[in-house]
């Protein structure tokens, strides 16, 4: 057979012409996506990258004490350092005093070990009275902590330009003087508890949402249209209502003199002068989050159940299964994609929840997001806030990735 090329009307071989058209279409599609893609990339993805960068960046202090750290390179950190280290420290500190920039290292060193604050302040005050030579002795004379291994070791620990210390702190670990990773003292282990609580709340909220959402999604999917549309409002109205409105309605309901407590007293479960605390603890967080996130579970379940033909259940029953067996063997397996979508969605949202726990959670009901916000706005330890954020982000993205594998991100349905 002859391999004669097919030509298009303008004389170019069809294969080439087609390829050209394909490429043009590809470029056109890419150009349409480009504005949003670049916008998200520059204003969103890169800043998140910068945040991750900030969590390991420790260059500020190495820029302020360059000579000290250079001299410390030769020091093995087993015994107190020799004279050259102190001489370098003297030079660095005098320069910092001259330029009045020592404030920053005080904060940084105090994160590393408390006690550095007074140490540096006192030393800087006296540094211009130092005489030449024998700096080690003079330093120790100003403050005895300069002669203690804990402080000198801690100082050396701040030398590397990049550090994972903030991540270690986020899981209650730290570097000791020999740069070995150890657990922090028992009474200061707060972050593991916080992570566990966040995980627990997210898991249980997901479970509660699933248990509550499954029957009503089923009802909505099986009722005739005119009834289900009416009932759907009960799901969609909270969905469209401001989060703060819903949280404030829970604050009204759960407060000490609120309707739920009135009911409890009226039922005789608790005495009037001994009303239970329903708010500012983990109970409040649970109840409010479950109600607020329930629509996110109902909607994916509903959209899957809507596609299941009722004849399948009838077929199951006619083949001799009891309704329960038919449900378990036929209906339930068909709803699994919806369950997966709803559960992962609720889990992802609840693990990073901020507003509701902050308002109704109190101290014992606050989650990891609240701690991140605290370090961003109050303690101003931005590097630590970034590290906690990065850890949370990794967790969420893992779940997101699983979600994408199982459900496919284009299968998300809204309303």
């Amino acid at each position, binding site marked *: 057979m002859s391999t004669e090329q097919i030509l298009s009307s303008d004389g170019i071989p069809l294969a080439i012409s087609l390829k050209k058209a394909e490429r043009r279409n590809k470029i056109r599609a890419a150009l349409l996506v480009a504005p949003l893609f670049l916008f998200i990339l520059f204003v969103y993805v890169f800043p998140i990258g910068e945040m991750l960068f900030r969590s390991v960046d420790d260059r500020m202090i190495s820029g302020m004490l360059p000579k000290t750290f250079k001299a410390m390179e030769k020091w093995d950190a087993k015994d107190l350092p020799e004279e050259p280290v102190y001489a370098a420290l003297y030079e660095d500190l005098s320069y910092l005093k001259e330029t009045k920039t020592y404030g920053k290292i005080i904060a940084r060193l105090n994160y590393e070990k408390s006690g550095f604050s007074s140490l540096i302040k006192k030393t800087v005050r006296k540094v211009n009275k130092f005489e030449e030579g024998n700096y080690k002795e003079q330093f120790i004379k100003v403050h005895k902590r300069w002669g203690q291994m804990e402080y000198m070791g801690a100082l050396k620990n701040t030398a590397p330009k990049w550090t994972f210390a903030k991540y270690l702190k986020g899981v209650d670990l730290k570097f000791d003087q020999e740069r070995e990773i150890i657990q922090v003292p028992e009474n200061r282990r707060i972050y593991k508890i916080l992570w566990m609580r966040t995980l627990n709340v997210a898991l249980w909220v997901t479970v509660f949402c699933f248990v509550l959402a499954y029957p009503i999604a089923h009802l909505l999917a099986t009722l005739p249209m005119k009834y289900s549309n009416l009932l759907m409002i009960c799901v969609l109205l909270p969905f469209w209502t401001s989060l703060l409105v819903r949280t404030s309605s829970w604050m009204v309901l759960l*407060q000490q003199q609120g309707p739920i407590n009135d009911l409890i007293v009226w039922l005789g479960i608790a005495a009037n002068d001994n009303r239970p605390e329903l708010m500012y603890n983990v109970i409040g967080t649970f109840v409010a989050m479950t109600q607020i996130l329930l629509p996110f579970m109902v909607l994916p379940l509903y959209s899957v159940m809507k596609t299941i033909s009722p004849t399948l259940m009838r077929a199951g029953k006619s083949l001799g299964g009891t309704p329960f067996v038919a449900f378990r063997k036929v209906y339930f397996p068909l709803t699994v994609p919806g369950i997966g979508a709803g559960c992962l969605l609720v889990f992802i949202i609840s693990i990073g929840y901020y507003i509701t726990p902050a308002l109704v959670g109190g101290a014992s009901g606050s989650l990891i997001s609240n701690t991140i916000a605290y370090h961003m706005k109050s303690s101003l330890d931005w590097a630590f806030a970034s590290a906690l954020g990065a850890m949370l982000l990794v967790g969420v993205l893992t779940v997101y990735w699983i979600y994408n594998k199982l459900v496919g991100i284009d299968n998300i349905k809204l309303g």
Partner: protein
Amino acid sequence: MSLPKYTPLNYRLWHYTYLTICGLVFFFLIAPLFVILPLSFNAEQYIHFSAKMLALDPEGFSLRWYEDMIWGTKNPWGLAAKNSIIIAFFATIGATILGTVAALGLSSRHMPYKGAVMALLISPMIVPLIISGTAIFFFMAKVGLAATHTGIILAHIILGTPFVVITVTATLTGFDHSVTRAAASLGSNPVNTFMKVTLPLILPGVISGALFAFVTSFDEVVVVLFLAGLENTTIPIQMWVGLREQLSPTIMAVATCLIIMSTLILVTAELLRRRSERLRGINR
């Protein structure tokens, strides 16, 4: 859902239990919203159902908290409402345009790396707001847009676009591309085709995406908490501040207004969804 007459008693019982459970869940979903309505008309200062209110005595009710909301001295709600509307308006426009255009590209079968690009564009919806807030704050502070309307609007465009992309892509999946080809073969240029043929058909999806973007922006607290200065306070921020101090009846009045607004949005969204399904020829 009436049962056939021959249904055995135990199934009958189970069926009514199931309906009761469903009823309770629906109650749990919707009832909290309705607690707020009567309390906003309370004549007293406390967030509590007074004896007069329970007795339906007209004296127990008043509009004083609505008056306080609108004319009250030193009240922040006027400025907050103005800011909220300005920010939500521009954020919606930005998110809708960027999102719709991107969705057009994404639903083309020629789009390279579709999955990865889609995942990236949807990510602002998935990443916890606290992380988005932190990252965007660092960025805006660096480029000098912190505590400006522009900064908040840009942030809200980011948060709103995933919704537009999702709804418009969903509308486009049922889209019959032969109509655009027909337009092209009749000599229409792509822009003209889009404006005259594609857009009217996908408009319901675009508008419902825009509604999502609007609500996202109007309701957003976390990112604004990081970005806003005193001048850029919004309604959610004022509610947040108010709720942290104490529950005041004025907040209940504001909340009632917001519930009314969300009801309107719900009705609009529902009408649009039905119209969209009709246009795409999905019969149920």
